């Protein structure tokens, strides 16, 4: 559980600025995978004071979006905006779900992340249209240095989208936290905890389907069976 004081406006602003920078890295600059869910959730989770929960969410989103690729002119799911919104939502929800793992908070954050993954596609299309306008404006420029300088004028839009997704996720997290706190009983948190397991299953299926190799299911199933076997042996040994 994070202390209330840790979600100060300064901390949120710092994390939103980090989200804006990471958003640039997804396509506009470098592409060293800092904007992938595992890394982005890990870094934003550190900034927000929920590192272990954010890392769990990042690992699951990484698997869900494992096959996301910007091939040619297609606009794939926006895995970074999903991560930024998911982890900022998660930071507000964790206190409402005491206990190890905070699975209920993770389930809700994953749902918010998927919503922003789809909304992010619209944002990317908007960005491409804006860049096209920049290209046309650059062609009208006589001075060569100024014309080519238009190459960097599209940077602010993905950065803004990153910060807005972060803010959107945080707002949803705050609202949902209030709703969760007002609920009494154990049924809803338990149901949400199991929903997280359902999301993990979907993430795994999505990951294996996205890997284009013959018998991917056998490689994945064999490795999963090995882990299950080790787990079973541990359970039996502990009895």
């Amino acid at each position, binding site marked *: 559980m994070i202390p209330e004081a840790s979600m100060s406006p300064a901390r949120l602003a710092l994390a939103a600025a980090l989200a804006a920078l990471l958003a640039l890295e997804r*396509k*506009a*600059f*470098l592409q*060293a*995978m*800092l904007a992938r869910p*595992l*890394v982005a959730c*890990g870094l934003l989770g550190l900034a927000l004071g929920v*590192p272990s929960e954010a*890392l769990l969410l*990042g690992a699951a989103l*990484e*698997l869900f979006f*494992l096959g996301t*690729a*910007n*091939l040619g*002119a297609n606009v794939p799911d926006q895995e970074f905006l999903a991560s930024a919104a998911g982890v900022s939502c998660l930071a507000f929800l964790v206190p409402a779900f005491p206990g190890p*793992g905070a*699975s209920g908070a993770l*389930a809700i954050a*994953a749902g918010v992340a*998927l919503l922003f993954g789809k909304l992010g596609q619209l944002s990317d299309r908007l960005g491409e249209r804006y860049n096209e306008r*920049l*290209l046309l404006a650059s062609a009208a420029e006589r001075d*060569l240095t100024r*014309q080519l300088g238009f*190459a*960097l004028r*599209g940077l602010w839009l993905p950065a803004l989208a990153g910060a807005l997704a972060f803010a959107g996720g945080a707002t949803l997290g705050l609202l949902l936290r209030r709703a969760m706190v007002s609920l009494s009983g154990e049924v*809803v948190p*338990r*149901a*949400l*905890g*199991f*929903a*997280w*397991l*359902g*999301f*993990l*299953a*979907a993430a*795994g*299926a*999505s990951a*294996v*389907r996205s890997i284009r*190799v013959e*018998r*991917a299911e056998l*490689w*994945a199933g*064999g*490795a*999963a069976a090995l*882990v299950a076997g080790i787990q079973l042996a541990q359970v039996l040994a502990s009895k």
Partner: protein
Amino acid sequence: MSAAHDRSQDTPAPELTARVRRRVFVRSLWLQACWNPRRMQSLGIAWALEPALKVLYPDPQALRAAADRHLAFFNCHPYMTAAILGGSLFHEQRIARGEEEAEKVVAFKASLMGPLAALGDGFFWMSLRPAAGAVGALVALLAGYWGVAVFLVGYNAVHLGLRAHFFSQGWRLGDEVVGALAATNLTGLTGKLRPAAAAAAGAAVAVAGAAGPGHLQLLPMLAVLGLGVVGWVLLGRGLSPYAWAAAAAGLAAVAGAFL
């Protein structure tokens, strides 16, 4: 024959120094900052080449002609573009010296962008990244932030190493860069990385399931794996991963509410 060619008959064009080539390489990291559907990476590649073109073509008209050559439609895998940028520097230097026609660099880019895009997509986007991501996720579930380090270091050691290598080979070899690219055997590596990605993804899901709620950790893991198999079948029949995520989470939530 271009104005630059005519001029270069009398005064040899200056050499492209290592410093200028470094500037071009660093600028190439922003290649897609203005990616658009009309000309895709054209503005990015022209901006990246600008420092070199200014050295090679002191005459404003020749400089404009050279820049216009690179403002035409261009699209390639962003990492593989390093080889094309290096090769473009090779050709532009020869064009500025009058050793070849201006059309040569245009043909070089046009002939390589398609094949290199396919090679880069297949290796980096569809093999290396899924493998590094799945292994990183698995390690993150087992050892926390080490997973992030494994992902970033493992991926970028290959990514940045090859990107710099492709650029220098393009500059050194020009058209012959194709042979250097073939020698890296990216296609062969693809066949090894994808099974590793699938295995790591399967193991990661099992490990994540074992950390779920429940008194016996084995049961949630088996539930996750069972739902995963159902999902794998349904996704193969065209169901959207988003729809399956909602359905699987909903089913699990209902089960959890009554357990």
